């Protein structure tokens, strides 16, 4: 199957992409790059970022459509239900797309693009990057939207088994449709320090946004206690956010100005230089579907101490991470255990192990299998799809059916106003390495 399957033409859709930065953004970018290397055609669709609007080509000829759509809340576009249909349809036809891959449950552009692609009969795949609860109003609403999108999905991907359980519960999708394909880390970017740090002074690194969900309040309790128990310990805290003031106050209250260093916001290009200056990486998140930061730290050779939340226990083997309950006392005990384990840790060996455990090439191969599985699923028309929406709820089901019927009529209208045969298709440049190969062939001919 691997390598012998047909080449796919994939459209990645999300509100989150470079120049914005985060886990979803880097996931889409690295996955796209590795799929290009496997010979597939990949196009990314996102909304405009400031002046960046229109079509851009990034590394290896990855084409990005920055649709002229303004974000209105946390980089999310305004939910318009159908206004994105014309441009989504045009891009899909121009690029001769075969699979539409949406990312992140919180992305409105993703949900709308998947809905339109299904209406047009294309295969759709969805990747969920976050965990959501069940009790608060925001989560209830978000789960209903997810149920609508996944009612008619071909395949779904989650980044951890805990995330898969969460998504299955929230949306009611069949577990067999959900693949567990984790995030990965670019081990070439995160290498250990050439010179091994001595253990005369133990440096604990924290790199995360300083917000409630990342457990900044937990840090405020843990750092003074660790500094009190272990005189050799120093902290480096990278990141900014509303809770930064609390950490500054903690430093002054316990007179830790010389032992706790606050760096502020750290550009991603400098994260490695921060990580390799430490021995231990501390993650205090209260909820994580996966936590790429732990992978980055392990790739730099750091031993990790983390809260046992969400998908974190699945991320690393037990000898590379020390897990603790999200309570100050347990966190301090975990830090103590990590300090005891430190003499047996070799950063270079840890880095080599990370190379084997995670790679984006492996993620791309597994995602390719998901695309193959999606292509095998039967093609359905509107009448076959409506019963799937009816099962979403006694009232929501009928509302969803109505939305899809209107969407279908809109599609027919667009077909009438602007027939598909009239839309100019983009010529294939082909992968750059193939292009170079053909150039060599021409040279040989000469």
């Amino acid at each position, binding site marked *: 199957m691997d390598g012998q399957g047909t080449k796919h033409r994939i459209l990645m859709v999300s509100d989150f992409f470079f120049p914005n930065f985060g886990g979803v953004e880097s996931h889409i970018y690295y996955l796209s790059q590795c799929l290009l290397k496997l010979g597939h055609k990949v196009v990314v669709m996102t909304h405009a970022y400031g002046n960046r609007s229109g079509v851009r080509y990034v590394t290896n000829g990855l084409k990005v459509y920055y649709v002229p759509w303004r974000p209105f809340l946390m980089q999310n576009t305004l939910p318009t239900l159908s206004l994105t249909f014309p441009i989504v349809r045009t891009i899909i036809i121009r690029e001769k797309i075969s699979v539409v891959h949406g990312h992140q449950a919180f992305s409105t552009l993703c949900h709308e693009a998947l809905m339109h692609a299904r209406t047009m009969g294309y295969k759709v795949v969805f990747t969920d990057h976050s*965990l*959501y*609860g*069940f*009790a608060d109003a925001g989560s209830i609403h978000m789960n209903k939207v997810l149920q609508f999108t996944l009612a008619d999905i071909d*395949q779904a991907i989650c*980044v*951890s*088994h*805990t*995330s898969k*359980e*969460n998504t*299955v*519960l929230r949306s009611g999708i069949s*577990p*067999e*449709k*959900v*693949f*567990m*394909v*984790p995030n990965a880390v670019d081990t070439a970017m995160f290498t250990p320090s050439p010179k091994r740090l001595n253990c005369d002074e133990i440096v604990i690194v924290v790199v995360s946004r300083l917000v409630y*969900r990342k*457990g900044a*309040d*937990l840090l405020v*309790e843990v750092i003074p206690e660790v500094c009190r128990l272990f005189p050799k310990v120093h902290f480096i805290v990278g990141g900014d956010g509303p809770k930064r003031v*609390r950490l500054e106050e903690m430093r002054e209250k316990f007179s830790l100005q010389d032992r706790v260093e606050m760096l502020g916001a750290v550009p991603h290009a400098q994260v490695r230089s921060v990580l390799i200056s430490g021995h231990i990486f501390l993650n205090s998140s*209260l*909820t994580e579907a*996966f936590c790429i930061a732990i992978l980055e730290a392990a790739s730099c050779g750091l031993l990790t101490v983390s*809260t046992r*939340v*969400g*998908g974190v226990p*699945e*991320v*690393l*083997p037990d000898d590379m991470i020390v897990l603790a309950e*999200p*309570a*100050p006392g347990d966190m301090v005990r975990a830090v103590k255990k990590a300090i005891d384990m430190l003499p047996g840790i070799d950063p270079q060996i840890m880095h080599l192990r990370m190379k*084997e*455990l*995670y790679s984006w090439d*492996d993620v791309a191969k*597994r995602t390719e*299998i*998901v695309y193959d*599985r999606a292509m095998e699923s039967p093609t359905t028309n509107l009448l076959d799809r409506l019963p799937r929406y009816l099962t979403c709820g006694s009232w929501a089901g009928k509302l969803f059916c109505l939305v899809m019927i209107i969407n279908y009529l809109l599609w027919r209208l667009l077909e009438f106003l602007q027939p598909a045969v009239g839309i100019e298709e983009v010529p294939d440049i082909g992968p750059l390495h193939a292009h170079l190969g053909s150039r060599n062939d021409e040279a040989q001919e000469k």
Partner: protein
Amino acid sequence: MKSSDGNQIKLQPMWRKVAYGGRQSGYDDNYTDESFLEEMVMNANVVKRDLLKVMIDSVSISQYLCIVALVVSTWTLTLNLDIDESTLLKLDVGLLLVGFWVLLLTTCPFSLKLLTKYVLNISFFISGLYVLAPIYHTLTRSISSDSIWALAVSLLLVHLFLHDYSGSTIRPPGALNNPKLTSNISLNASIVASVLVASRLPSRLHVFAIMLFSLQVFLFAPLITFCVKKYHFRLHLLFSFTLMAVALSVTYQLHRMFFTVLLALLVFVSIVCPYWLIRIQEYKFEINGPWDEAKLCFDITE
């Protein structure tokens, strides 16, 4: 073929719920075994409730409804000039003494310093109120009476809806936890309603007396009832039922419609709502699992 398949199955390594190490050999990425949703917990926080206990717990709400009904009755009688200012002042003094007495009985730490502090605070409070009485007297002269009544009733409803029935807004000295925002809004609504009603009385002394009465009840009645309940629950029940009897008899003499509404409310709160709560509990559906956001076990002090 069958036996060889069996052998192959036996030779496969066990599937592990981990994300590292790539795709596990012999298993697809969408493999789902029996441990799926194993850690899901349903209705972990659901408490089995007994009808009698819920009814007993609802007595606090009925009690406070009666207190408010008595206050409204007093307002009405005063506005109708059935109660003169000297009687009202005697009632104020009586309530103050009874309240102090109950507080002393139910609160263990007693000291002369604390008592002196209380007396001083009360004196300052009463003096300030007396000085402000002329302002209250003329506050709403230019507003029509039906607007006043509508506003007062609305504010009392806000007070009842947002009231903190499980504690009291005025905390005993040294108590933890600050009062909630809704509790503060509730208290302010009742005080504003009192001012509106007081502004319709004919003389300054009347205004002072009714304001003192209202503030005594709205500010300190929840504290007193809270202390009584904590001190002796049976006494709390006795006091509540006595209060209900007094409230019903007073309202019966005052206004039949008011009496009917109060009786219906008491029946609704004491009997219908507890039964309704227990009946509706079977629809409770709560999911917990490892995907939930962790709760911090300590208070965040900003």
